[in-house]
Every structure is written in structure tokens, then in C-alpha cells.
């Protein structure tokens, strides 16, 4: 009797497991759909999330052989939030050029470590467009993007590449793929009385470019906060003397020469800036003593937005162009680069 009961139980087990899995899957799908619908109803949308993997995916792309000519877009937020690779490519194509602009700028991180990495990479023979100002060339901040470079050389793998490609697809369509909507994070926010996630006004694309949509934000508050930060920062900051600064830059000259020797080119681009932000930067790094002296020794194209009327865009928060001006800036920059015979 016991034996027949055991065998009937054993026979019933797969059916119970099937029921378990079907019901559990139904609950998971229903919960997921309800989660998506709720947050979409609150006005949130899916968005690509930038990461070391996404940076590495782009970094690998600049090593691919030409054509098209690879354009490595280096810099910090002003490039990442100010240049559209697709508009750049379109404008270049309109001028009869076949280029592939690749976004390697990293918000909040000056880019010289990435430039050094390209100089050390014999496979890179394209153009490095480096969005930077004199402060970003101070040796103290050279290594800000070093973790990205290190990750690319040590941790990037075919497996990570495929994972990132699939993840990007997911993030483009699913709110639940955004880390700030993690269920544990939402619980923690609720416990802290912080309410729903912050509505980010920076929107990322799969090519790592982004745009600051000031219509979705309080631009006055952002501008004031930025200036307040700078007013606090600069009194505690001692700018290197022009001589010390230039001495450091001689090492960078060597990197640029290495890229030039392989047939590549380097462009240093000082992006649009305005108001008190520009004034404070100028007080500590006067153009005549820093940027212009560098231009005299650097075997690269040097572009300061102030010298080109077509590059003078409004920067609502003093530091970044609005999302509606990104295409215009990208196209204007392509034309300037063409005029300067960069390509």
C-alpha cells in the first residue's frame, strides 16, 4: 500500500512542478507588467544606463580598421551631453566624409587617461577629439578616466560585450531595467521617506551620448548650484603655475606625437561655457597664459569656442548646451573640423 502511494506521489510530482512553474511565471509576468504600467503612468520612461561595459563597448569600436575613419570623442559631460554621434556622422556624410564618431566622454571625469590609452594603442589610427579646458589638463586630474581604461583592458570580454548589447536592448524598453527602480532601492527610499525616484533630465542613448533636457528641470536651481559649487571649489584650489602646467603638458605632447606618427590626429576642443562659470575658469586659468601657450607647442588642432562664432551656443546651466542644440553644435563642429583640415 505504502509502495503504491509513494509511486503515485512520485508520478504526481512532475505535474505539481509544472503547475508550480506555470503559476510562478504567471505571477512574475503579471507583477512585472503591473510594475511597468504603474511607473509609466507616473511619467517615467525606459532609458539606457551608462556603465563601464558600455564605455568599453565603444572603446573597442575605435580600434576597428577604417573606413570609416574612427573619431574618438573624448571629454567629460560637455562632450557626452553636447555632441550627437549620429548628427556628427550625418553632417560629415553631407560633406562627403565617411566617419564613425564614437562617444568615449565620461560625465564628471576629465579625459587625459583615455587619450594616453589611445596613444599607447597601436591599433588606434583615427582622430581623437578631446573636449577639455585648462583645468582638465592639470596633472592632478589626468587619471580620472583611468578606471574606465583599466576596466576595458582587464575586465572587458566577449561575454561582457554580449551581455551589454542585450542589456542595452532591455533598458531601451523596460523601466525595471533602470537601477534606480530596483525593488530594494525603492523600499529603502520609502523607508527614508524619499518618495519616487528622481526624474532625471539627462537622457542617454545606446551610443553613450546624452542630452540635458532643461525643459524637464529647474534650470535656475541647477545653474545656481553649479556656481555655488565653483565658488566653494576655487578658493580651496591652487592652480599650477603656467610653467608647471606646461611642463606636464609636454608629456601629453609625446602622446599626441605618437598618434600623429601612426597617421592619426588629435584635436583639443574647448567647449561652450558662459556666465560666472567662464569668468571663474578664466580667473584661475587665463587663456593667454595657459591655453594659448599650449597651442604654441602642441602638435594638435586647438579649437576654442570663442574663436568660432558658429560654436557659440547658449549654455542654460553655464556649462552644457540644451538637448535642442546638440545636433546644431555637432554639425557646427564638423564644419569647423573640416575647415581646419582635420578630415
Amino acid at each position, binding site marked *: 500500500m505504502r509502495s503504491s502511494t509513494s509511486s503515485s506521489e512520485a508520478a504526481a510530482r512532475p505535474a505539481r*512542478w509544472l503547475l508550480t512553474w506555470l503559476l510562478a511565471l504567471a*505571477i512574475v509576468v503579471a507583477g*512585472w507588467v503591473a510594475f511597468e504600467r504603474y511607473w509609466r503612468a507616473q511619467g517615467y520612461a525606459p532609458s539606457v544606463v551608462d556603465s563601464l561595459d558600455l564605455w568599453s563597448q565603444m572603446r573597442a569600436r575605435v580600434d576597428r580598421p577604417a573606413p570609416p575613419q574612427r573619431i574618438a570623442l573624448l571629454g567629460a559631460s560637455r562632450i557626452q551631453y553636447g555632441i550627437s554621434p549620429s548628427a556628427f556622422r550625418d553632417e560629415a556624410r553631407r560633406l562627403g566624409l565617411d566617419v564613425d564618431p564614437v562617444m568615449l566622454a565620461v560625465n564628471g571625469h576629465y579625459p587625459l587617461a583615455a587619450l594616453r590609452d589611445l596613444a599607447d594603442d597601436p591599433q588606434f589610427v583615427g582622430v581623437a577629439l578631446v573636449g577639455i579646458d585648462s583645468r582638465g589638463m592639470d596633472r592632478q586630474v589626468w587619471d580620472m578616466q583611468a578606471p574606465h581604461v583599466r576596466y576595458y583592458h582587464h575586465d572587458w*570580454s566577449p*561575454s561582457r560585450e554580449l551581455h551589454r548589447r542585450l542589456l542595452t536592448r532591455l533598458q531601451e524598453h523596460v523601466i*525595471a531595467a533602470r537601477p534606480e527602480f*530596483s*525593488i530594494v532601492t525603492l523600499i*529603502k527610499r520609502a523607508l527614508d521617506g*524619499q518618495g519616487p525616484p528622481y526624474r532625471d533630465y539627462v537622457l542617454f542613448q545606446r551610443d553613450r551620448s546624452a542630452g540635458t533636457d532643461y525643459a524637464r528641470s529647474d534650470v535656475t536651481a541647477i545653474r545656481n548650484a553649479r556656481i555655488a559649487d565653483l565658488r566653494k571649489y576655487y578658493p580651496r584650489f591652487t592652480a599650477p603655475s603656467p610653467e608647471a602646467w606646461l611642463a606636464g603638458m609636454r608629456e601629453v605632447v609625446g602622446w599626441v606625437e605618437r598618434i600623429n606618427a601612426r597617421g592619426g590626429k588629435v584635436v583639443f576642443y574647448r567647449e561652450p561655457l558662459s556666465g560666472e562659470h567662464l569668468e571663474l575658469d578664466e580667473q584661475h586659468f587665463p587663456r593667454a597664459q595657459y591655453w594659448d601657450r599650449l597651442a604654441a607647442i602642441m602638435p594638435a588642432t586647438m579649437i576654442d569656442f570663442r574663436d568660432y562664432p558658429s560654436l557659440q551656443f547658449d549654455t542654460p546651466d553655464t556649462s552644457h548646451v540644451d538637448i535642442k542644440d546638440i545636433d546644431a553644435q555637432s554639425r557646427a563642429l564638423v564644419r569647423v573640423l573640416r575647415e581646419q583640415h582635420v578630415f
Partner: protein
Amino acid sequence: MTFDSLTFALFLAIVFPCYVLLRSWSARKNLLLVASCVFYGAWNPFFLSLLAFTTVFDWWAAQRIHAATDGPTRRRWFWASIAASLSLLGFFKYAQFFANTAIDALALVGVRYQPLDLGIVLPLGISFYTFESISYIVDVYKKRITPTRNLRDYGLFMTFFPHLVAGPIMRFADFNAQSTTPRTVSAEGVALGAFMLVGGLFLKIVGADQIFAPVSDTVFAADFKAGFVAAWAGAFSFSMQVYCDFAGYSLAALGIAKMLGFHLPPNFEAPFASVGIAELWTRWHISLSNWLRDYVFNPLGHYRRGRWRGYLNVMITFTACGFWHGAAWHFVVWGALHGVFLVVERMLKDSPIGRWRVWGMRGVRWLLALFTFALFAWAVVYFRAATIGLAWQRTLAMFGLEPADAANLAWNGDSKVFVVALLVGLAAQAWLKPRKGWAWVNTMAWPWRVALLAMMGLAIILSPGKTNAFIYFQF
């Protein structure tokens, strides 16, 4: 690739149906071997050649040992194989450490060199597969097993993707018994295996990365001056993090193997419900502690040569265990601390104190289990901290000697979720302790099973946050 990546989801979605569809056992093994090589090569194709070298060389050396008719020839092949395995491990894992230790030592006598960066990348899983190949060679040399003549079967033992990069550390005899007999893919095995896979991913993605990592990352940051509460919170949090991380990986590995019809030995069995560190090591990273017992502690003489020699053997074994975990002094200290705990525990058990009846009382055993967890947490500070100096600072804080400007952990969402999860985690371990293996899932009332599975699945899908690499991948 890692089990928590979308790459692996795609990989399994391709490999598993192909495996099921193939009729021939030999074809299935070929598929598993190729899939395992893809699994490993997807991380770094170059290091696949290193794994292939170790596999082929040890397979060949084992044949030579078995075929040799005289002792010296057997010994030569044996030591050649051991030397090859340890040389590769030594170079990739310890060369940087030895170089820097030598530079530090020379600095003590006034000879100064710049620290070296050899730029050596540690091949994924090298510590695990080196131990597996050593156990194979030792077992063949000791005539415990007969070496296989089938390179494919040996290659599958070494590379079988569920256990390749972070264990469980398998023995050839156990694996070969399975791989030479066709495995059956049953509906129940697939369902339970997939359940275990979901459970493992839940522990890793939700437990380790989302709940426990934020607190331990805060407390173990170099510039955080932890007070008494914060230091203990960080130690408890990292204990749970490393458990969820590694037990989660192991559970997923067991589940995937079960789906394929294989049985891997359990690696974790409610370790934080242990009473005493000796019991803990029968429940924590079981495959490693068994390996150390069989290939280090027993060959050293166990306790056979007297009590004090036995204590020394324990210290040697656990110091080596620490060194296996990482090429840094703080790992060595972590291992040595466990050695000390085990020696003291053994001394107490052998003394009249060990015979007190009070130790058998239920309430006292609960207290002892908590004390064991606290000891583990204290030692784990030396595992987690980046330097011995930082670990020492946290140790001082844990014993009340906190810095004057000590910071305490904010009582915020991170801390509240951590405390609740810690209590739930410890209670779950107490509940799991008498239940061996995962058969209890089969006997669970199905509505509870549905609820548990749905909860874990939903939590995984809704936890897209920052994913940390599996901690044991660095070993």
C-alpha cells in the same frame, strides 16, 4: 561568463535544449565539452589555452604515473605534474605578491626599489581547477583511482561549466562515475534544478548585491572611521554578503548541473547555524574544506602524531587556506585566525570544560551558534578589508577601542533593510540546518513553493542595480 549575466541566460537557452535533443550520450558529452570551452573562452579566449594545457598535461602525466612500473618514474611524473600546476598558479596568482613582499623586505634593510606592477591578469577559476587537477594526480599516484584513458572525459571533468570557475571543487572519481553513465534529464530534475538556479541568483543579485553590499562597502571604505556598532554591522553585513554571493553561485551551479542530470556536491549547508568553528567548516565551502582535509591536513599527519603536532597541522592547513583565497597578508591572517579558533575550540573540547552538560542545553546552543557567527564575522574583517591596517582599525572598533571621531552607521534605508535581512537570513539558516540537501523543496506544499518561486523570480527581475563581480571569482 557569469551566471547572473544575460550572456549566460542566452548560453543556457541554447545549450540546454540542444543537450536534451541529442540522443547519444557521447554526443551530449561532446556538446558539454564544447559549451564549457565557450563558457570559459567568452571571458578570455587566451586563458582557454592555459586551461587546455593543464588538462592535457595532467591527463598525460596521470597515464605515465599509472603505467610506470618503478617508484622513481612514478615520483618523477607525479612531481612534474604537481610542479606544473603549482607553477602556473604561483605565477599568475602569487608572482605580484612575492615581488612586492621582496621589495618591502629589502626596504627594511635600506635597499629601496619602486613597487612593481607586473600587470598579470589572474585566469578565472585557476585556484579551483588547479586543486581539482592536483587531487586527480594525487589520487592516481596513491592508487586510489585508475586514470581515465579518455581525454574527452577528463576534459569534461576539468571544464564542466557549472563548476568550472568557482567550484564546488570536484573529485574525479565522483564526476567520472556520473560522466561514464548516461545522465537522465527528468522533468523533476529540471524543475528542481531551475528552482535552485533561481534561488542562487536571488541570493546573489538581491541578497549580496542589493541588500548587504551597500552596508559593507560603507563600513570598509578606507576613509570611514567606524565606531563599535558600525564595525560590527560591517562585519555581519559582509559575512552575509559573502555567503549570499558564494552560496548563491554554488546553488546556481548545483541547479544547472541538476538540470543536466548531474549531481554536484553541496558547498554550503546553513553555515551560520553552526555551533563552533569546527562545525562551521563542515558547512562552509565544504568542497574546499574537504580538499584541505584530504590533501593537506591528513598528509601532514592529522592529530596522529600527538596533540601539539595536530594543532600545528591545523594552523598550517588554515594559513594555507587563507593564502589560497588571496595573495595578500590579510587573507593569510584571516586563515590563521580560523586556525587559532579551531585549535582553541579543540583544546576546550578536550579539557574538562568540554564535558560540561551545559553545552548540550538548547538555549546555550543557540547562544553558541550566535557566538560562532560573531567569531566568523570578526575574522571576515581580515578577508574584506583591503589592508591589514584597515582590518586592525575595524578590530579595535569592534572591541570598543574606536577612534575619538568615530562615525556611526546612519539609521537609514540601507541599515534598516540590512537588519531585517540579517535576522531573516539567520532564521532561515536555523530552519535549514536539519534539512540536508534540497529534497525539502519537493515535499513543500505547492502553494508555498509557488509563492517562494514567484517572490524570488520577481525580486530578481526587479533588481537591475549595480552588479558586483562574484567575490570568489578573484580567487
